[in-house]
């Protein structure tokens, strides 16, 4: 029926599509884990909707022998779990690949397919019926078929099925393994496999999401209190920490709302428990007053904002980097804070641990800006190095006299950092006040607002940012100096740009890359210096208004010449970035706002 074909790319992409409730995640995760455990690198992105049943969702799994930087653009194998998926994706399948679907239920017009795309229609219902009543079992059959036609070792798939269903008992394991085997056998009899040689080293690597990396970074970084209200796409942190956190001494508290989550984290941080809270843009908006509180009373706290499409409820399950301005403007008045955007899964781990340090060293809120793509995509990574995580609790007071006779919690120091005493310590009692206060914590707003004292305290707090700017690692440009084009990114957009850069480099184009991780305090001097040395600049960010571009202009007076923006909810693909770069290097104009396509 199908002819033997060859796939040429270095990486292979599998797209599993259907409606919510069809069991896409189980197919996709089993496949991704199976590949990951064979020594392959996987990057998996689930494009889903805010429904529990119905709608259209698809998970794109890109697999390669080397690090995979993005979900990619192409689809080599399509696993269609419903008719809608055929309509949406069949025409996108790469020649040489094929479409796996239940031909008892789904119609495929083979004549309409691109030349060379294989029709892997299977009688899934009939095959699956032998192994149970659940319609989801058809997905396991499809997995077996995929294993054969894509030339992936069946044992790898089988191992993942066994470990996934182990908890549900032998009967469930046997049924699923049987269904996958039946799918494999059917494919073997009826189809020819695609000639593609996988480089299976058998090296087992970590396979996790950005949210899991954040949770893991919290564990490694000594977080002892995590509070949250459920909100996509931050809930993955809560879901990992809720069962596992207590095993590492972490109190995990689901709260009545984000206001409570943030205020509780402030309370816990104040008494000396490293604390963190996580949410998305809407919840972050509710937290803002207490972010100012944390900065005013100098309580350490980490706030994770996993951005999603806004405004308002917006695109609850879609990608966007639209909260930079919100983070910059969160809460009234001027106060010290950090805004840091991790870029990769690995970086999410190290940066979370670093954020817990920064919060205690500078005694202020640290906002970690993740985004849906970074937080929710699965990726194969090399082992994280826990030994790189060092705990630094900042300056703690040991002696009640503090050199001045009585303990001054908010002592004005050259660094702006006042040595901290924790409640419970003898001889250092004070009240931490959200009203403006003196060095000893006594409020100055009630009787007489002493302007001189106010200035001392404001300056003291803000000085912490000057101190931080001296100590933060410098921004670095990746790639050759004097490149013809410099990419500028923040957050997860880093990855797709890396992907595009690899292709450009192969084509002999000289490009480099500035990723800005510390968004506040802004490293104006170092970034100005870098930008002044660039020939041509292109900023890639997933929002409408170019929030980082504007911040750069505000802080450096420099304008980035070219931008690529996207706010349609789907992540950038490498092709789009590549094409934009090519057009700029050739001097051609392309539409600026990708969302208008």
């Amino acid at each position, binding site marked *: 029926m199908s002819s033997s074909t060859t796939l040429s790319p270095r990486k292979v992409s599998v797209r599993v599509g259907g409606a919510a409730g069809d069991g896409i995640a189980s197919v996709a995760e089993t496949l991704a884990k199976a590949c990951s455990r064979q020594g392959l690198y996987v990057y998996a992105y689930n494009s889903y909707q805010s429904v529990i049943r119905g709608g259209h969702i698809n998970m794109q799994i890109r697999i390669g022998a080397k690090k995979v930087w993005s979900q990619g653009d192409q689809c080599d194998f399509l696993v269609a779990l419903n008719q809608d998926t055929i309509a949406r994706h069949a025409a996108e399948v790469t020649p040489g690949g094929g479409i796996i679907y239940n031909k008892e239920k789904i119609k495929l017009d083979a004549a309409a397919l691109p030349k060379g795309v294989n029709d892997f229609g299977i009688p899934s219902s009939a095959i699956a019926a032998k192994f149970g009543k659940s319609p989801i079992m058809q997905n396991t059959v499809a997995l077996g078929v995929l294993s054969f036609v894509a030339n992936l070792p069946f044992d790898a798939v089988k191992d993942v099925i066994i470990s996934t269903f182990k908890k549900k008992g032998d009967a469930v394991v046997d049924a699923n393994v049987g269904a996958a085997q039946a799918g494999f056998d059917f494919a073997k009899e009826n189809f020819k496999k695609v000639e593609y040689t996988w480089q299976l080293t058998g090296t087992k690597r970590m396979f996790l999401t950005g949210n899991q990396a954040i949770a893991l970074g919290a564990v490694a970084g000594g977080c002892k209190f995590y509070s949250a209200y459920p909100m996509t796409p931050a809930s993955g942190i809560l879901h990992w920490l809720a069962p596992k956190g207590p095993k590492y001494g972490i109190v995990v508290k689901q709260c009545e709302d984000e206001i409570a989550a943030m205020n509780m984290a402030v309370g816990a941080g104040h008494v000396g428990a490293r604390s963190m809270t996580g949410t998305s843009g809407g919840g972050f908006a509710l937290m803002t007053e207490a972010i100012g509180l944390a900065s005013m009373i100098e309580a350490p706290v980490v706030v994770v904002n996993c951005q999603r499409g806004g405004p308002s409820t917006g695109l609850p399950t879609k990608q966007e980097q639209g909260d930079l301005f919100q983070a910059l403007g969160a809460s009234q008045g001027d106060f010290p804070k950090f805004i840091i955007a991790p870029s990769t899964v690995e970086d999410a781990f190290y940066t979370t641990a670093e954020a817990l340090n920064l919060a205690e060293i500078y005694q202020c809120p640290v906002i970690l800006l993740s985004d849906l793509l970074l937080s929710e995509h699965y990726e194969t990574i090399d082992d994280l190095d*826990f030994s790189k995580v060092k705990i630094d609790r900042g300056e703690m007071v040991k002696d009640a006299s503090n050199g001045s006779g009585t303990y001054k919690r908010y002592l004005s120091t050259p660094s702006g950092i006042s040595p901290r005493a924790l409640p419970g310590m003898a001889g250092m009692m*004070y009240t931490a006040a*959200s009203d403006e206060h003196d060095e000893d914590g006594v409020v100055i707003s009630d009787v007489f607002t002493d302007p001189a004292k106010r200035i001392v305290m404001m300056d003291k707090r803000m000085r912490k940012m000057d101190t931080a700017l001296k100590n933060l690692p410098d921004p670095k440009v990746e790639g050759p100096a004097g490149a013809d084009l410099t990419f500028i990114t923040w957050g997860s957009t880093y990855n797709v740009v890396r992907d595009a850069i690899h292709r450009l480099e192969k084509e002999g184009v000289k490009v480099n890359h500035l990723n800005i991780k510390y968004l506040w305090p802004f490293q104006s001097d170092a970034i100005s210096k870098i930008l002044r040395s660039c020939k041509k600049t292109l900023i890639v960010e997933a929002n409408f208004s170019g929030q980082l571009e504007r911040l750069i202009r505000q802080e450096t007076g420099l304008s980035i010449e070219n931008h690529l923006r996207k706010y349609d909810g789907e992540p950038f693909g490498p092709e789009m970035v590549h094409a934009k770069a090519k057009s700029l290097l050739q001097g051609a104009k392309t539409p600026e706002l990708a969302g208008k396509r």
Partner: protein
Amino acid sequence: MPTETLDVAKFKSKIAPDWCPGCGDFGVLAGLQKACATLGLDPKDVIVVSGIGCSSNLPGFFGSYGMHTLHGRSVAVAQGARLGNPDLTTIITGGDGDGYGIGIGHFIHAMRRNINVTYIVMNNQIYGLTTGQASPTTTLNTQTKSTPEGSIENPLNPIQLALVSGATFIGRAFSGSGERMAEVMTEAIKHKGFSLVDVFSPCVTYNKVNTYPWFRERVYDLQAEGHDTGSWDAAMAAAKQPDNRIATGVFYKTSIPTYEELEPAYKFGPPAKQKLGLDKETATALINSFK
């Protein structure tokens, strides 16, 4: 025979309260100091957390660790402090606007969680610091700056709300009866679980209705009338204020496990006191759990 005197002074701070002369909050401060002294607490192991409002200035006047947080958020911050270090005796103080208005969500959820904190609400039935607007406990028809024709909303009944929300200790006091108030507070702090003490603390400047004489005519002590503190129904009935009399004392108390007793993370000790950092073996196991 000389009687042992309580060391109340150790719970005084160097800051003199700046409430209006005659304010009920003076009595509450004295009562809380007496209660803490009676219980023999060490000031360094006590944290008093407040929101914003006249009464929320209390932590600054109290000799212990303190937090003066945001309007309506004291209960949330205090729960975090308590969960972060359950070795601290955690007392929340604030007013009716702060706790029963803007902060009511946190109040209800803290009660159903049965976190071991004591919440003392200085209920003056008015917004004082903002110069006299209607509060959630302002009575029907009372004229205030925001209700010039008299309030057309029914007041909230904090005792009944606490009963249906699962508070495990519910008391009420009148700032004009200092001794009894201190007793109720002492019992509340001693109680394991969430304890509420709603204190009538007259605002002499902005509330000309609910005055000291007004309360003196109406309040009575439940414990003087054989009230069964184990009966939820009896507490509900007493909280209805039948015959225009106002019950004070202990309405209800029950013993169920506290949130802290059920939280598994505490087997490693208070979060604020745990050693930070993972050993190599734990790190390796974590890495492998993702393979």
